[in-house]
């Protein structure tokens, strides 16, 4: 068995083609920009007979050429992904094999996009996303990692080797190296090489996505629950309550994030039980939020309210108790059969929520201050609606636009924060495959071997970029109404 090259037999044709197309694209862009400096901007010309004409001349020709070149570029890139699927193992190089491993993800992505574009007019804001190129690219990047996490975490596909297994001889091995006999996993190569402990980097990066995709959105939801539950009354009532909460929020925001992490996420602090108490405090907010939400909606029909409230609060309360309860910590009162699960990274989760909540609070408070002066709020007050009904069912739905956009951005920021924690080796075991820890492991030998640190860095970058583009697309589309 030979080591794999980057593009294998595929590259013989595709690499030069790609290089030539990309170079042509660059040249056309430069020439076009240079020409445009001197001349006036020409867009559509209206002819006397009432028809419109595209721009002509050199600029127009270059414009058309550029469009074709970009499409050629896209087609070539697609070829890199699709052609290896029909080639025999090993002949399409590392890139080809990675593509083949990711086949379930491609199928899921294509299916999602096909269905969404087909029914986009019936899908509300989500459907409108497919009108914006930026939004679609962002969604594709995000969905790619979501599907990777699902297929790795639930179906155990994609990963090629056990991400914890150390194989002697593969320490810092270069990408495409052959694993010795008896250590092959699903395939006999380490696609992206081995890290400093001779573990398969490709499998570690893919497995790392599970951690991020599971923690980042959930932590952001919790931060939003806390921020909304406190920000609405702060903005609506104002006064002393608002002053005190705003002061506390500013206090947390004045801390440099890394100092806060270093103070909160240490084994010593875990020993004192502070993270458990913080979890007990912060995790209570979703419970309060949903309880108040249901109550304000149905308080005129007590029977219906009780019928909804009891099962919802009951199951949520059980989840809450088993989330904060963990054997061996300060909060340990539930019998073992009732404790559904333990969160192994509780301290990481709690500190990320704690850092994000004050910013959400400030945004919600600001929006509420603005919206409470609107006429529909005055109308609701005149009708005699309760304060919480107005906050949750009149103000909150009207603040959803900025909040949804911020939610996307904040998941990205949370991903960055989780990476920062891993980068400083805080709260996560050094075995953990998450991207921050892997970058931290890789950077120690960065000047000698670059291949262990680059893949997780690129993975993190693409996910955060996707979330940012998605937020941008959502903002654009929601402003169009």
């Amino acid at each position, binding site marked *: 068995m030979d080591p794999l090259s980057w593009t294998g037999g595929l590259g013989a044709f595709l690499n030069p083609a790609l290089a030539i197309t990309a170079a042509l694209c660059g040249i056309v862009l430069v020439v076009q920009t240079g020409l445009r400096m001197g001349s006036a901007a020409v867009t559509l010309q209206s002819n006397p007979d009432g028809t419109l004409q595209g721009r002509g001349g050199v600029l127009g020709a270059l414009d058309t050429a550029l469009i074709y070149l970009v499409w050629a570029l896209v087609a070539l890139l697609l070829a890199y992904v699709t052609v290896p699927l029909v080639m025999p193992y090993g002949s399409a190089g590392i890139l080809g094999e990675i593509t083949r491993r990711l086949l379930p993800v491609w199928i899921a992505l294509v299916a999602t996009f096909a269905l969404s574009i087909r029914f986009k007019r019936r899908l509300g804001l989500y459907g409108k996303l497919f009108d914006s190129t930026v939004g679609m690219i962002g969604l594709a990047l995000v969905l790619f990692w979501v599907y990777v996490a699902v297929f790795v975490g639930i179906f155990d596909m994609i990963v090629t080797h056990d991400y914890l297994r150390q194989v002697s001889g593969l320490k810092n091995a270069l990408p495409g190296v052959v694993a010795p006999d008896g250590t092959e996993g699903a395939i006999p190569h380490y696609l992206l090489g081995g890290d400093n402990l001779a573990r398969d980097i490709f499998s570690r990066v893919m497995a790392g996505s599970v951690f991020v995709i599971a923690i980042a959105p959930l932590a952001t939801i919790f931060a939003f629950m806390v921020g909304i539950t406190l920000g609405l009354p702060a903005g609506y009532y104002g006064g002393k309550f608002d002053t005190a909460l705003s002061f506390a929020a500013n*206090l947390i925001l004045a801390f440099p994030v890394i*100092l806060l992490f270093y103070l909160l996420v240490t084994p010593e602090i875990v020993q004192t039980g502070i993270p458990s108490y913080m979890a007990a405090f912060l995790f209570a907010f979703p419970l309060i939020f949903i309880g108040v939400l249901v109550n304000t909606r149905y308080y005129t029909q007590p029977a219906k309210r009780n019928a909804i409230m009891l099962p919802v609060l009951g199951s949520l309360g059980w989840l809450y108790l088993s989330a904060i309860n963990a054997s061996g910590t300060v909060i340990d009162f539930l019998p073992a059969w009732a404790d559904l699960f333990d969160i192994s990274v509780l301290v990481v989760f709690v500190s990320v929520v704690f850092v994000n909540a004050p910013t959400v609070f400030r945004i919600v408070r600001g929006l509420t201050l603005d919206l409470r002066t609107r006429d529909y709020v005055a109308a609701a007050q005149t009708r005699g609606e309760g304060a919480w009904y107005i906050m949750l069912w009149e103000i909150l739905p009207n603040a959803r636009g900025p909040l949804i956009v911020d939610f996307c951005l904040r998941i990205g920021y949370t991903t960055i924060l989780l990476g920062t924690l891993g980068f400083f080796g805080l709260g996560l075991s050094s075995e953990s495959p998450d991207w921050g820890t892997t970058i931290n492991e890789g950077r120690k030998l*960065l000047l000698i071997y670059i291949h262990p640190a680059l893949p997780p860095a690129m993975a993190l970058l693409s996910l955060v970029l996707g979330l940012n583009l998605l937020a941008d697309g959502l903002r654009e589309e929601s402003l169009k109404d």
Partner: protein
Amino acid sequence: MVSFILRRIGIMVLTALCLTFIVFWLTNLFPNLEKLAKTQGNFRMSDDAVLSYLGNNGYLQPLPVKYGQWLGVLPGYVIAGTDGQMRARCATGGQDIVDAARFCGILQGNWGYSTVFREDAGSIIATRLGLTGKLMFWVMLVMVPGALIIGVMAGMNEGSRTDRSLSTVSILSTATPEYVSGVVFISVFGTATFGMQWFKGTATAAMDDANFENFFLPVLTIALYGMGYIARMTRASMTEVMTAQYIRTARLKGVAFSQIVLRHALRNALIAPFTVIMLQFPFLLNGVVIVETLFNYKGFGWTLVQAASNNDIELLLGVSIVSVFVVLTTQLISDIGYVFLNPRIRIA
């Protein structure tokens, strides 16, 4: 205006007190003290030895008392140790206890003693802050003009191809945290892999002798993350100004486009970015910590990591005071500057 500034300074002092008290409380929790005792003594100390070490060095006094002593509003402790030796907080470096001052806290200018570097915390912070100041100066010099140019270029023709590509670039830069861009830059420009080994992958040499080769990558890494955000704010502000009535009037009376941008639009468009630039300082502080760790540049951020990971209480408190001071001062400056730049806002 004066009363506004005074009130803001009052809030600042209150915030600083609260924050330092929180840091003090967290670092003085018993498991942390135990770790401190063991790193100072040895790792196989018995529980009794830990307790007597902590008692002898005044760590077992009640928290408010300790905080008061550190602040300098309560007299420093004088404790007869279990080993028969007298120790006083204010008698450092072999000074006689009788000669020592009664108060020696932060208010008296005594920053305390760093247990990691075995040196006066104040002088450590001063030297490290100087090094980070150098880094920040160059970061600002790269980041602010870069961000403003990108933002203005993108914002003066909303929806054009320049706008779209520059906006994508700024989104890309906000999506790249320092530990990703730093790793990428070192891989590409600091090693021979891609044949572009133009810069040094570490900045340790830059502490004494900073030059383009060893200082450019860390500066660029920090600047890039902040640049995108400022550029987007500038773009938003610029597009808003470009749709204003007086710009349309100027266009209609035939003023050249470049003149409109430079003479009419730019000044009004730069009010909002000023606030944003000032509020970027706290974020830059994070960047500094990451980049100094990554490039092994032993400045303020590096000191923070050292102090925090070794539970060096007094150094950590000093570091947090400085960072809180930076954060709150920049907030104050941004508020005051906003009023000065924007004549429509008046604070009574």
